[in-house]
C-alpha cells in the first residue's frame, strides 16, 4: 500500500500527543512500518501544534508536506483552516468545532475568520465537523475529546475498528480507560 498520511493539528495542551501515540500503536499492531513526528518545547505553550503520523509498508520521511495528508484531525477550527493546504486533493478533514482565540485575536490585532467549516466545504473538501468536547463530556470527561475525534475519523484512518479500539485501550491511562472507550464508541456510532 501507499504510505498513509495523517496529521493531527491543534493548540498546545489539547492532547494531540496522546492521539498520535494511539494512531502509532494502531499502525504498528496492524503490522505496518510507522513514523510519528511531534513538537515539544516552546511551541507547546498554547501555540499552533502539529503532529504527523505516517504508516505503510516502509516509511522514510517522518513529516507530511503540503498536499500530502490523507486525513487531518483538527482539535480546533482555525487550525483546520491553517493546515488545509496540507490536505491531499480528495482527503478528509475531521475537526472539532471548538474555537480558541489566538493572542493576536484576543488583543484585537487580528480577527477570527467566520464560518470556517462552511468555507472549507465550499472548496469541495470532505469535512466532518462535530463538537468533540460535548461527545466526550457525554461519555464522562471532556478530556476524552481527543479520543472522540479519533472515533469520528475511524472510517478514514484505514484501520480495522478493533485494532483502533485496542490501541486506545492500550495508550490511555488505566483510570481513564472506560471513559475514553465510551467516547470512542459514541463517536464511531455517530459516524456510522
Amino acid at each position, binding site marked *: 500500500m501507499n504510505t498513509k498520511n495523517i496529521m493531527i493539528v491543534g493548540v498546545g495542551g489539547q492532547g494531540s500527543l496522546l492521539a498520535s501515540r494511539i494512531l502509532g500503536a494502531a499502525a504498528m499492531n496492524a503490522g505496518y512500518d510507522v513514523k510519528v513526528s511531534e513538537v515539544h518545547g516552546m511551541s507547546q505553550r498554547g501555540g499552533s501544534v502539529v503532529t504527523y503520523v505516517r504508516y505503510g509498508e516502509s516509511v522514510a520521511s517522518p*513529516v507530511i508536506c503540503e498536499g500530502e495528508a490523507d486525513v487531518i484531525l483538527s482539535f480546533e477550527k482555525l487550525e483546520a483552516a491553517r493546515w488545509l493546504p496540507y490536505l491531499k486533493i480528495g482527503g478528509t478533514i475531521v475537526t472539532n468545532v471548538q474555537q480558541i482565540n489566538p493572542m*493576536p485575536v484576543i488583543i484585537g490585532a487580528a480577527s477570527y475568520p467566520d464560518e470556517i467549516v462552511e468555507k472549507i466545504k465550499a472548496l469541495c473538501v470532505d469535512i466532518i465537523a462535530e463538537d468533540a468536547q460535548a461527545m466526550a463530556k457525554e461519555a464522562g470527561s471532556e478530556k476524552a475529546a481527543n479520543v472522540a475525534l479519533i472515533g469520528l475519523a475511524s472510517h478514514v484512518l484505514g484501520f480495522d475498528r478493533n485494532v483502533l479500539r485496542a490501541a486506545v485501550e492500550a495508550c490511555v491511562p488505566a483510570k481513564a480507560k472506560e471513559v475514553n472507550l465510551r467516547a470512542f464508541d459514541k463517536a464511531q456510532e455517530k459516524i456510522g
Partner: protein
Amino acid sequence: MKKIMLGNEAVARGLYEAGVHFISSYPGTPSTEITEFAAKYDEMYAEWAPNEKVAFEAAYGAAIGGGRAFCAMKHVGLNVAADPLFVSGYTGINGGFVIGVADDPGMHSSQNEQDSRHYAIAAKLPMVEPCDSRECKEFAAMAYEYSEKFDTPFILRLTTRVSHSSAPVELCERKNVPVRDYEKNIAKNVMMPANAKKRHVVVEEHLRQLTEFAYDCPFNKIEKNDTTLGIITAGNCYNYAKEVFGEGASYLKLGLVNPLSEKLIREFCRGLEQIIVIEELDSVIEDFVRKLGYDVVGKNVLPNIGEFSQDLLRKYLLGEEADSSMIADEIPPRPPVLCPGCPHRGTFYTLKKLGVTVYGDIGCYTLGAVAPLGAMDTTLCMGASISALHGFNKVRGEEGKSVAVIGDSTFMHSGMTGLVNIVYNGGFSTVLILDNSITGMTGHQENPLTGKTLKGDAAPYISLEDICAALGVAREHIRVVDPADMKLLETTIKEELESDVPSVIICRRPCALLKGVERKPALSVDTDKCRGCKSCMKIGCPAISMIETEKGKKAVVDPAMCVGCGLCESMCAFDAFVK
C-alpha cells in the same frame, strides 16, 4: 520485541543496552527526553547537573574512572560545554564516553540555528548521526565500542526531527559491562603544556585511524541503484531524499559525519554523472566533497537556513510545487503564550507598567517579550540577563530604570557568576529571579533548587536567598515577593531600583502546570459590572476575550482555560470578575 520509540527514548535504550553506568545532563529541547527516559532504568545512574559544562565534566570524570558515561545537551548547551570538549580528545577516556547533542534546524525551540558538526571538526572528535529511532539506538550503543577502541569521546549528533520522531525499534538485552580499572597516568590525563604537546600528536594519530575506519565502518552505508545520479547525505535528510528519489538515485548515507573518508567518497562517485549533497544547515559534507574536485549540486540550490522536508527537495531540486487548496481569509498566527495562571504574567505586566529596560533570559518567561506584554529588551543566551545588564548600566548609568529577569533553573545554570560580577565590580543593578520551583520550558525537570533529583529522590534544600547573600548581596536587599500580589511587587521593585547597592527580588510562585498546584474554580464576568474598558486585556491572558453582547462589548472568561489565579480581578476597577 519491537516498541515504538521517540528518537530520544531510543538513544536512552541504546545507552541501557550498551551497559552505560553514568549519565549527567542539563535539559534543553530537543535533547531533554534522552536523560528522562534513561533515568527510568534502575541499572543506570542518571542526574540533572546545573549546566552542560558541569554535566560534561561529571560524565568525563565517570569515564576516566572506568565507567561508560554519557551526557546530553541541546546545541547551545555544547557551547557551554565547549571548554572541556576540546581537551577531552587529548586525554582520551577509559570507559566509553558519548556526548549527545541535539541541533534544532528550524528553531522550533531555540535562540539560534547552529550546526554542531563544526564542533566535531574543530575539537577533532568523531561524530555519528542517526537518521531515525532504530539508528538512534544502534548508533548510541555502537559508539561505546568504538569510543573505547579509539580511546576518544564520540559525539552523537541528533536533530529535532530525529529526536522527536517515533518509529518501531527492536529491543535487545543489556550488556553487562564492568567498570574498568583506573590507573593514575599524569602524562595522559594532566593537560599542561608539556603533556598536551605530546597528546596533540596522539589526537592527530587517532584522527588518522578514524579516517581509515570511516572507509568501511558500520555507521556508513552505500545503496547502489541502476542510475548515474548519486546522493551524498546524512541524518534525516537521507529519509527526505529517499522519499523524493526512491530507487532513482544511488545513496551514500554517512552515519559517521566526522571524520569523512576521501577513499569512500571517491569510490561512491566513480561513474556518476550527477552528485547531489543533501544536508541541513551548513555545507559541511559538501565542502569536503568539493575539495576532492567534484562539481556537486548542494548549497548553490538548497538553503542553509531552516529545516528540510521532501517538499523542499522537490521544490528546489525538481522545481515541483504541491497541489493544495486554501480558504480566502487571512489566518491569524497562533504564537505560544504564557499559560493561564502563569506566575510570570504579573511580573511582566508590572515591569511594563514601570517602563523599565528588561534584560531577559532563556525560559518560558522569554514569552514576556510577546504582545501585549512586550516587557523585554534583550534575550541572548542562558545567564546573559544579569551579566549583560551590568555592562548596559556601566555605560548608561540606568541602574534605577532597568532590571534583569532570570528563572530559577537558569540562575543556577549560569546566573550566579553574573551576580558576582555586579557585586565585585561595584554595580548596583536589580535582578529579578523568577522562581517557579521547576525547570519549566523544557517540560518540568527538577533542578538544584527543587529539593528533588532526576530519579525522584529527596535532595538537600538549597536556598536561593542564601546563595545570593553568599555572593555578596546584602540580606535586606534580597526580597521575596509573590508575583500574584502585583501591588507589593511594584513597590518592592521601585524600592530596589532606588537603592544604590546590588539587589535581588525573588518572585516566588510555582508554575501553574505543576502537579499539586491548586487549580481554583474559573472566574466569570458580571456583565452588568463590566464596562468593556479592556483593562483586563493588558495582561495577555489567553482565557480572557472581549465579545460583542446586547449590552455592548464585554469581557468573557473561557471556563475550560481559567485556573482562577485572580490576576484579572486585580486589573478590574469595577469588580466585574466573580468567583
